[in-house]
């Protein structure tokens, strides 16, 4: 009986639901005995010169072992992401300047954690304020520079040297331009950032850190510390969510290591949520100008997107993402002419990084908005206009104007399935009825069709599978789950070949001494690389076992079959278990799978929204989704990933936004102020199934982790605008808060007079 595609509950859960998982701050490892606790003193100003730091009083506080400032940290500052412009370097503790509210300026080490907060309050720092740089256009003007050495606020760009063609839209009877804000978001994993380190007598750092990529983080930290990678042993405990913001290492990890070596004692660091809301990488933050043109029949002939993206103060992985926005700009549409360009600028705000979707939600949200505006301009149904322009199913693999090669797709099928499942015609009829009645609660329907790139940038992954003499199995994986359930999914993949039950299979990840190499978990890559590697390794182990069993059982390999953890001669009682084989000789296979290319899952979402036109409040009534990522390994896990993505997608459309005032002060830096939804803000979700395989790996699987954010956000934004389009509203930026919706209704009413 194949286990593939079946609903298997998680191996992780008995522990997670009884004594709880073990996150970095929970660790009680012997190596951390006697650890000091690190409390960071952080800048309250967005942009300022540091004129003095006085730590004397803090040093005298109870339990304080050391207080250090930038001058004390004997470690060269670093450009944290190689692609950034030269000169944009970050010190481990700020020395001459601070560039965002929350930048660490001093480090307090105490015996007990509570003492750290008390001592930190006693550190006195004098600042000489400088003008903040928050607006992206102001940043791009270079009027106030963050880094004198860089001489510019532009960190990098994509396509900046290419001139836009001023005739791009000449053959378009209809042209619409819209400026769109894809707003800054906070990742908000429930576990904040944490790292603990000890410097051993063997002159190696042991670093426990909450990260999505053990080896990448180890390499980054080693590089920053100026040591060989072999000098850092990184262990990933259980990780309480990442969503892209925990990709690789944060500079605080290097600081923790350095302090551990400097003091000769282990050091533990665990940030508060308020620190996290200014210290952790944030997502999105693009200002987009889109132009779409076509004919009155609904054919889109040209599309252009011009992006101004926010790097935050110190360029990190966020500066790479507009490349994906450009690549995915045309999305699911077969548009003859597409142009794009992106400039990334630094601002005196929190650095940006990857956040679920990482550059692709931005692309989809932009073109979906453009399609709606185009449809409204020509007076046609937005679903029909989309269908008309979708890439036909017989055109795959399809090389897009963005430079991507889409492996497989059934875009029209997805669109039609979602319209059918939602009852689109009935919804439009209900909308018409309500408009006629003129009551306060109006209905909006928003449709999105999307494609996204998964596994991009790192197509290979390692796995090893070993059967032990006691009949249990250990799988080593280079992936790094933080909620995705790899301990169950990879066990299923191994079990499929071995016939050994999932409960007897242990999956290990995230320890750089135990696992020689790995890329980690990000970009929805894990199943199509790491999972396939496990499947492949298990298959190779079975082949190896058969060869050994053939000798033992004096049979031909062709007469052997594997079932229930044993190799037997077909049609006879003659068999040997894998465990018995392992007793005679270690039974382990190390394998690597390289898919060679990214895959392109796709789907369609339909959101039904109710808007109270008197107050502007919008609520998602229903959302019906297709998120096609090929064959589903475990529907329980796949649905969970879709649910989480959909929730975050709805949240971007309706609720969440990181806001800075003109002085660079963060106004949404707590969970009380940042509109992170609870269960009461969300509906249940209707998931429709569709599986279109890829040819890129033997399982035909793509990645599903981020699809929800990519499809749901534009569908919901579109639905809110649609709900009030009869009042003359054409566009509302996200989040479509009650204030924004009310303002848009009034503006439309005002201009209608």
């Amino acid at each position: 009986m194949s286990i593939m595609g079946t609903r298997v509950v998680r191996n992780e859960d008995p522990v997670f639901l009884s004594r709880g998982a073990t996150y970095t701050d929970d660790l009680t490892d012997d190596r951390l005995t006697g650890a000091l606790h690190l409390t960071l003193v952080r800048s309250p100003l967005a942009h300022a010169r540091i004129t003095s730091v006085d730590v004397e009083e803090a040093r005298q506080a109870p339990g304080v072992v050391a207080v250090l400032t930038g001058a004390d940290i004997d470690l060269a500052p670093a450009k944290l992401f190689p692609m950034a412009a030269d000169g944009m370097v970050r010190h481990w503790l700020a020395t001459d300047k601070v560039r965002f509210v929350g930048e660490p300026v001093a480090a307090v080490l105490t015996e007990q954690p509570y003492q750290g907060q008390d001592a930190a309050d006693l550190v006195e720092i004098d600042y000489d304020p400088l003008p903040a740089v928050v607006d992206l256009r102001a940043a791009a003007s270079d009027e106030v520079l963050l880094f004198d050495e860089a001489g510019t606020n532009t960190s990098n760009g994509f396509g900046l040297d290419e001139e836009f063609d001023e005739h791009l839209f000449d053959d378009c009877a209809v042209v619409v331009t819209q400026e769109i804000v894809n707003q800054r978001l906070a990742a908000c994993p429930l576990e904040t950032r944490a790292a603990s380190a000890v410097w051993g007598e063997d002159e190696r750092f042991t670093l426990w850190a909450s990260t999505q990529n053990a080896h990448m983080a180890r390499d980054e930290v080693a590089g920053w510390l100026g040591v060989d990678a072999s000098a850092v042993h990184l262990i990933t405990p259980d990780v309480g969510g990442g969503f892209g913001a925990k990709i690789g290492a944060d500079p605080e990890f290097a600081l923790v290591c350095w302090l551990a070596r400097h003091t000769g004692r282990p050091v533990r660091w665990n940030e508060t949520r308020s620190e996290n809301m200014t210290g952790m990488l944030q997502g999105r933050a693009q200002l987009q100008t889109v132009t779409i043109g076509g004919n009155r029949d609904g054919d889109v002939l040209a599309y252009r997107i011009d992006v101004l993206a926010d790097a935050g103060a110190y360029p990190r992985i966020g500066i790479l993402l507009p490349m994906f926005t450009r690549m995915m700009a045309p999305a699911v549409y077969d548009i003859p002419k597409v142009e794009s360009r992106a400039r990334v600028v630094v601002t005196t705000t929190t650095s940006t990084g990857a956040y679920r979707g990482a550059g692709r939600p931005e692309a989809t949200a932009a073109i979906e908005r453009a399609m709606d505006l185009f449809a409204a301009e020509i007076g046609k149904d937005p679903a029909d206009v989309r269908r008309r322009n979708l890439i036909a199913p017989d055109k795959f693999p399809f090389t897009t104007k963005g430079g991507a090669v889409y492996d497989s797709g059934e875009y029209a099928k997805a669109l039609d399935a979602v319209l059918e499942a939602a009852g689109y015609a009935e919804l439009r009829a209900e909308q018409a009825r309500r408009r006629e009645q003129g009551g306060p609660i109006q209905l909006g329907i928003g449709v999105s069709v999307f494609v996204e790139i998964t596994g991009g940038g790192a197509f290979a992954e390692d796995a090893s599978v070993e059967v032990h003499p006691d009949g249990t199995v250990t799988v080593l994986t280079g992936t790094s789950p933080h909620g995705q359930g790899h301990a169950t999914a990879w066990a299923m993949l191994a079990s499929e070949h071995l016939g050994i039950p999932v409960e007897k299979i242990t999956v290990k990840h995230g320890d750089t001494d135990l696992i020689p190499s790995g890329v980690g978990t990000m970009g929805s890559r894990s199943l199509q690389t790491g999972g396939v590697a496990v499947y492949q390794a298990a298959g190779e182990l079975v082949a190896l076992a058969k060869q050994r069993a053939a000798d033992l059982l004096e049979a031909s390999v062709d007469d052997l079959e594997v079932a229930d953890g044993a190799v037997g001669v077909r049609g006879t009682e003659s068999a040997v278990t894998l465990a018995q084989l392992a007793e005679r000789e270690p039974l382990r296979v190390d394998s690597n799978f390289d898919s060679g290319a990214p895959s392109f899952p796709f789907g369609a979402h339909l959101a039904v929204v109710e808007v109270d036109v008197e107050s502007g409040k919008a609520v998602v009534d229903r959302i019906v989704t297709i998120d096609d990522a090929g064959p589903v390994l475990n529907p329980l896990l796949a649905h969970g990933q879709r649910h989480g993505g959909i929730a975050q997608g709805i949240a971007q459309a309706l609720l969440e936004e990181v806001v800075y005032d003109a002085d660079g002060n963060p106004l949404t830096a707590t969970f009380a102020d940042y509109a992170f939804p609870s269960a009461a803000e969300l509906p249940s979700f209707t998931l429709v199934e569709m599986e279109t395989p890829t040819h890129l790996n033997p399982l035909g699987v793509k990645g599903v982790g981020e699809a929800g954010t990519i499809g749901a956000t534009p569908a919901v934004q579109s639905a809110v605008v649609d709900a009030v389009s009869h009042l003359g509203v054409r566009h509302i930026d996200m989040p479509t808060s009650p204030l924004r919706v009310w303002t848009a209704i009034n503006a439309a009413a005002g201009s209608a007079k």
Partner: protein
Amino acid sequence: MTTKIEMTVNGEAASADVEPRLLLAHYLRDVLGLKATNIGCDTTSCGACTVLLDGESVKSCTVLAVQADQQSVTTMEGLSPDPEQLHPVPAAFRAEHGLQCGFCTPGMVMAAVSLLAENPKPTEQEVREGLEGNLCRCTGYHNIVRAVLVASGQSAEKVHDDDTEKAPSGGLAAAPGFSVGDETGGSGS
């Protein structure tokens, strides 16, 4: 200054001399070594620290250990001493995949236990509102709601995958605190 406190935690007597400012959450985690209860925020918003205090759910980050003197505390560890024999509420979470990274889970489970003690057969909307003090970033709440309905002995299919007639959560009309002024003798929540 320290104060002596005595409590029953997961059925066992515990006592310690603590600073008055020691949060109950830190008492449980750092003094008693019960690490399941997590701290996810600093504004009493996320509920990851939820435990039962004399049977009622409270956010242990906003209770001082000294306030809980002479009272009984139950954490998630106390529900299931044996991981192979989960208490019905966490068992339902497993069955319905109501957890992913697990960080919000201990608080979510304890909040669910308290919710069901006060409302044994909640509707979907009552579950969602009953958990408004517990934030989860991974699951989108869909399966958490299913888990609580299942734990209450009701069908998880009340969380519709099939019923396309009406918004299962009630749409705008059911949004907390909201009404359009056309109900009788009450408000919308």
